[in-house]
């Protein structure tokens, strides 16, 4: 089936303050509450971040910064209009590449623009059905809207696009990584012989896939019955999409140029944006792969998952870089994901270095779990482990060493009568039990064991 999906995604820029006032995010003031008489003051940092996004998405960047007023009557707009960019977006005609099912996909980014976030309407937890709450603390947050051409071909691909986009923008530190700052998208979707339907305000990638899945099924069903898919705007409640407005009720936003902000020449801000931008992702990958002589695949994951700094710090204390990189990518990352932590929210890189230095890889894989989960240093987990092992019986210690393939091989040899391997096994038992047992005790145990 021929499906066309286009997305308009809103991301919150990683500024400290709001777009047109000096409020920190979460605060309110007369400007972001739209008091009579206030005027907007453009947050230059937000403009710089938006320029960086436009650059990351390979867009042409505008020479002038121009804002427009988008008017509609709804309680979420304190001024009754939203300051956005309509005629001259800060970026246009770009593209974004990502991998989907092992293939490279290139999606056209038609425009990138800056706008202010409306207030949040809260319908839940209200005593009477008649009222809603309006939370103005979000009002005026700096948003960047990223608009694609209708080139996505399935709900799954749309989801992957969004995840890849999020990962990339996260890498460049241009978007708010705060939990509340999830990506909000409006999706345009049409199937062959049907009209375009817009689904408004879908939160995150998982919801997006669900909403699109439902909508495509709905549209196909209508067509299979010989009915028409009407052009309309729909909402999504987490399960189904529903009509918000029919075509004839569509809003006319009556855009005019924002008269309270004079057009600003972007030359200086562009220069600063490019200067302060993080190194492009592929350059960074090549750089660390080359310096540390590590596998390109691991290097890429390290960079994409924002582990570069962590890796480079740990590498100061542990110079087997291939092992370190593999360990971080495979084991450490798994633990982070499991604990829902970011690299800077857990143990220090030195601890990982110490762990790899002082244990074998098998032990390290076990111990890292606890270190990340419980925020424990290497010394802490190591002494606890010793403590635990001291309480173990000789049988339990044996069981432990039998997890090692070399030991299992040695036991086989011993059973065949090869006495030479006995010392190796005894050595392993001693190490594993922290010399709790004597050589004689172990020898006696082994004789019983191989009978």
């Amino acid at each position: 089936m021929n499906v066309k999906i286009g997305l308009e995604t809103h991301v919150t820029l990683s500024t400290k303050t709001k777009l047109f006032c000096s409020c920190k995010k979460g605060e309110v003031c007369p400007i972001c509450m739209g008091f009579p008489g206030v005027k907007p003051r453009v947050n230059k940092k937000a403009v710089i971040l938006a320029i960086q996004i436009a650059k990351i998405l390979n867009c042409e960047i505008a020479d002038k910064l121009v804002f427009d007023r988008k008017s509609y009557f709804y309680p979420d707009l304190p001024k009754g209009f939203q300051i956005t960019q309509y005629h001259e977006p800060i970026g246009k005609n770009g593209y974004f590449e990502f991998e989907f099912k092992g293939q490279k996909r290139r999606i056209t980014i038609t425009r990138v623009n800056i706008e202010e976030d409306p207030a949040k309407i809260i319908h839940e937890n209200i005593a009477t059905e008649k009222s809603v709450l309006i939370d103005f603390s979000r009002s005026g947050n700096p948003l960047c809207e990223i608009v694609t051409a209708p080139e996505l071909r399935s709900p799954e691909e749309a989801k992957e696009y969004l995840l890849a986009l999020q990962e990339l923008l996260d890498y460049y530190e241009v978007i708010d990584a705060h939990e509340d700052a999830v990506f909000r998208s409006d999706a345009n979707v049409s199937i062959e012989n049907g009209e375009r339907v817009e689904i408004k305000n879908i939160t995150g990638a998982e919801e997006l896939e669900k909403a699109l899945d439902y909508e495509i099924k709905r549209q196909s069903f209508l067509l299979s019955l010989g009915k028409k898919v009407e052009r309309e705007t729909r909402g999504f409640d987490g399960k189904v999409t529903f009509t918000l407005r029919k075509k004839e009720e569509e809003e006319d936003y009556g855009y005019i140029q924002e008269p309270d902000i004079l057009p600003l020449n972007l030359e200086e801000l562009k220069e600063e944006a490019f200067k302060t931008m993080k190194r492009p992702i592929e350059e960074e990958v090549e750089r660390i792969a080359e310096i540390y002589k590590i596998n390109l695949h691991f290097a890429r994951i390290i960079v994409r998952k924002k582990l570069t700094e962590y890796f480079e710090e740990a590498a100061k204390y542990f110079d087997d870089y291939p092992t370190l990189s593999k360990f971080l990518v495979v084991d450490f990352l798994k633990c982070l994901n499991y604990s829902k932590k970011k690299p800077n929210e857990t143990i220090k890189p030195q601890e990982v270095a110490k762990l790899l230095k002082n244990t074998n890889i098998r032990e390290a894989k076990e111990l890292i779990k606890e270190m990340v989960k419980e925020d424990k240093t290497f010394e802490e987990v190591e002494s606890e482990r010793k403590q635990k092992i001291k309480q173990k019986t000789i049988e339990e210690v044996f069981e432990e060493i039998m997890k090692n393939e070399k030991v299992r091989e040695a036991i086989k040899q011993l059973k065949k009568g090869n006495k030479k391997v006995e010392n190796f096994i005894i050595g392993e038992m001693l190490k594993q039990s922290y010399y709790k047992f004597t050589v004689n005790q172990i020898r006696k145990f082994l004789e019983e064991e191989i009978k």
Partner: protein
Amino acid sequence: MLKQLVEKIKSEEIDVEELVEKKIEEAKKINEELNCFITICEDYARKRAKEIKQKIKKGEATNLKLVGVPFTIKDNILTKGIRTTAGSRILLNYIPPFSATVVERIEREGAIIIGKTSMDEFGFGSFNVNVGVGFKIPKNPNDTSRVCGGSSGGSACATKTLEIPSLAESTGGSISAPSSFCGVVGLTPSYGKVSRFGLIDYASSLDKIGTMALNVEDSFLVYDTIKGFDENDETSRSEERDSELKKKLAIPKEAFDSCEKEIKEKFMGSLKKIGWEYEEVSIPLLKFSIQSYYIIAMAEASTNLARYKGIAFGAQENVEEKNFREYFTKIRSENFGFEAKRRILLGSFVRSVGYKGQYYYKALAIRKKIIEEIEKLFKNFDAFVLPAMPIFPPKIEEALSLSPEKVYALDICTIPWNLCGLPHISIPIKEENYKQLGFEVVCNRFEEEKLKKLSLEFENKLK
């Protein structure tokens, strides 16, 4: 002269508390007849007068330029703690939590606000008869059956009768028109020269705060304290320009031609007194300035007024309506006056899909063209001079019965300069009865210094 008054207050020859008390009493008295105030803030004024007196006694007022000067403020300029309505019922009980930059600046210099003056609702008018629902029409102090001009009518009326300066505001002629009708000096600075922070917006790309006073010197004294960049208004700036004095004036033909015969004669008589060389200049595009102005102004106004919908701002009511739209409609229908509704509707129309190209964009293009054309003309002379109004103040009933097109067309003497953001001043040509007329001088953008020089000389010669 304010300068002398300030010196007398500083030297305590005039007691500031007594002065303020006297002005409050006068204000209350004239307001009964003329309706020039929406609010008289007597308690605030008395408290300020006391503070200022203390300051003078402690020697802290020596360098302040407006010490103890009673002021009136147009009611669309925010005054912290003092009700500010913009002449609209929708803001009937609005008490702003902060003051406009201009208010802060004059208060820093020791000014004392005694009241907020009447205006056309949100500035929507030329005669001050388009007052908000429940507001009173101010009357011309020279003839109470006539209008005092708008939209800053209350300011002109108060300046004339109380003989104290006022902060007023013009979008398309709202300073010149009432100054001309009441017989005071009205100064409209270049767009951007005075911060609009704290001005309740009518049309943001056209609104300008200016002054009204009894003479040119006082006008510029007040202007000098309020001008210049303000970080709270990104369209404001400190830019000043100067050009060589040519001692040559120009009469803009298209505007002059639309004046009444008697106005023309009076004006030409005044021009002779001045004695400078002059020529008539035709600017054919000028006849489109009114359309261009009203389209831009209404388009912007219709967005600026969208915040008054009974949520955070604007009268609030118990909600019985089924949805937001019905609620907004109810609040706005009941609380906006007729002209405000007209401008919101027309403004929404001219920027709507399908009509935007025909109206809004065309209006912007015309504005750009007129600005370019006029900028070129200024190479040949120092200023445009013309009557500030094409007519004498009409009777109130007469003004109320005029069609909007007729009223809009009467703005031809002020709109071109307002559209282009040019500084201009209206100086009274001395008259006995209601037939007051302003001699308007228009200079190039940011040439306020030249405007001052010219108007001081002209004022002298017109006496």
